[in-house]
């Protein structure tokens, strides 16, 4: 369980950027020009791409939400006020309360989950002026609540451009068919970079390859420690039961049968304790969520990868137990034990 905890916690922290973008980049991709902006010809070319349903000129920022181990971030898209409704419709999202941000003003609409996680209401404020750790500068008023199956916020592009004194426009591209087909059609272009899920995962893996190696080393060290600890426990265990095993042996039960019996017994105990451990950790996380972090928390959930770790760890421990038993339970030794000479 320690290994599972270490790997899942480390992954949880390292994957916060992925989590911030994963849902969004399953719905659309973002084009980031290599120069200040894409010229009209290129834009027209993009619009004529049959895989492109719609293009929105955007600027972007991020907003902080609380996580269990560190802060999480979600994207804020600044776009033309005239395009906001269209964008929401295309994402099957809608404004459920409040109003859209006004042009050239510091308004913000956020999805329900962000509002809940931050524990704020419409009319409340976010930004660096409220919380030093925020990325959004100044103070933005929450003007509306969006119902959507992805997490994001929308602000006014005019205001962003005025405030940032920049025309560094990016383009949010929605697919007419699937996101995979869109990404494939956008792949070959040297004038701009595409921010899509596979690029994000690739850059994440490159960025955290050292961390993954570190996790591997920690896992190996933990496995070796576990094997040593298991060996010590086995020694104590065998010493406390050696007379019993000697008795089995003297009654004609083979050493092999005794070893198999002990391995079976230990496997059942291990299985029960692993199951109990997983259940207890789930309850513990649930407790954290319900009692300590009511205002928004992301559960550290163990992925299949981490659960699969149980198999090699369990197997290596069982194999080491088998060899410890094989070297400890020998016929000659058991005879000495039963005679009281050992």
């Amino acid at each position, binding site marked *: 369980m320690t290994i599972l905890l270490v790997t899942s916690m480390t992954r949880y922290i390292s994957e916060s950027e992925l989590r911030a973008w994963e849902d969004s980049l399953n719905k659309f991709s973002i084009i980031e020009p290599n120069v200040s902006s894409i010229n009209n010809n290129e834009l027209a070319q993009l619009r004529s791409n049959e895989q492109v349903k719609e293009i929105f000129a955007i600027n972007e920022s991020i907003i902080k939400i609380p996580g269990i181990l560190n802060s999480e971030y979600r994207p804020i898209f600044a776009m033309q006020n005239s395009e906001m409704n269209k964008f929401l419709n295309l994402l099957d999202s809608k404004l459920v309360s409040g109003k859209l941000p006004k042009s050239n003003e510091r308004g913000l609409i956020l999805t329900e989950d962000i509002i809940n996680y931050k524990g704020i209401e419409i009319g409340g404020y976010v930004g660096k002026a409220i919380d030093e750790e925020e990325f959004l500068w100044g103070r933005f008023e929450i003007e509306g609540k969006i119902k959507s199956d992805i997490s994001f916020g929308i602000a006014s592009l005019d205001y962003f451009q005025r405030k940032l004194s920049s025309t560094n426009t990016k383009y949010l591209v929605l697919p007419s068919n699937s996101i995979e087909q869109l990404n494939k059609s956008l792949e070959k272009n040297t004038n701009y970079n595409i921010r899509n899920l596979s690029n994000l995962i690739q850059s994440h893996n490159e960025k955290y390859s050292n961390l993954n190696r570190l996790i591997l080393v920690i896992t190996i060290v933990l496995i070796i420690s576990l094997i040593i600890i298991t060996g010590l426990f086995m020694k104590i265990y065998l010493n406390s039961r050696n*007379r*019993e095993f*000697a*008795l089995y*042996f*003297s*009654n*004609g*039960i*083979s050493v092999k049968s005794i070893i198999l019996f002990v391995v079976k017994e230990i496997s059942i105990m291990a299985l029960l304790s692993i199951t109990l451990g997983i259940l207890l950790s789930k309850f513990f996380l649930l407790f954290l969520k319900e009692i300590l972090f009511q205002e928004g928390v992301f559960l550290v959930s163990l992925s299949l990868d981490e659960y699969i770790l149980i198999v090699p760890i369990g197997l290596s421990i069982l194999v080491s137990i088998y060899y410890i038993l094989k070297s400890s339970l020998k*016929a000659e030794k058991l*005879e000495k034990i*039963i*005679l*009281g000479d050992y």
Partner: protein
Amino acid sequence: MNEIRLDNVTFTRSNIDSELIIFKNTSINISGNGKIIIILGPSGTGKSTLLNIFFGILETNKGNVIVNGHNLKTSSNKDLMNFRRDTISLMFQNFPLINWLSCEENIWYMNDNLSQEEIMESLDEIDLLSIKDYFPTNLSIGQRQRIALLQNILNNRGINLLDEPTSALGEKYKFKVMNLLKKYLKSKLLIIATHDKDLLKYADEVYEIQNKNVVLK
């Protein structure tokens, strides 16, 4: 017929700086069904050693030990295990029991063909019925010894070796237990090593260890 034969056996035990001869060129033949054999002698004369040699957990330096046709000297570990499982049992002087099995289960463990009624009846005969569900750690030493005796007499092996089977029992249970052994003897060959002369009246044959030899009295 059950039979134990020692052919010209010599057995020595290593001391710190010398070899102590326990048996020298000893030959005996103990055989029969439904018989109680007693090996008599004070402590330290080699009674337990002799039972351990019969059981095959002590190897002789010289000579052959043949039990029901098995030459223990030439048997492999596997043969010895099969031989013990099918032919012979030994109740050790410290009568080890399995601590996580109840009294009833400890008896059943040695012979799973026993019916519950048979176990209950035998427990009742030596006043252990009320503690049948107790674990060995909760028993007195005398109770443990009586359980170990039942384990050995109720198993389905032809030869039962009992090392000081009444050492922890008072007068009352000593004779009760011996009567029980007689009752369940059937076609077994029972060999008892003891220093207690009160048990002699139950014996069909008595052997003594004299001058590094086993002698029929």
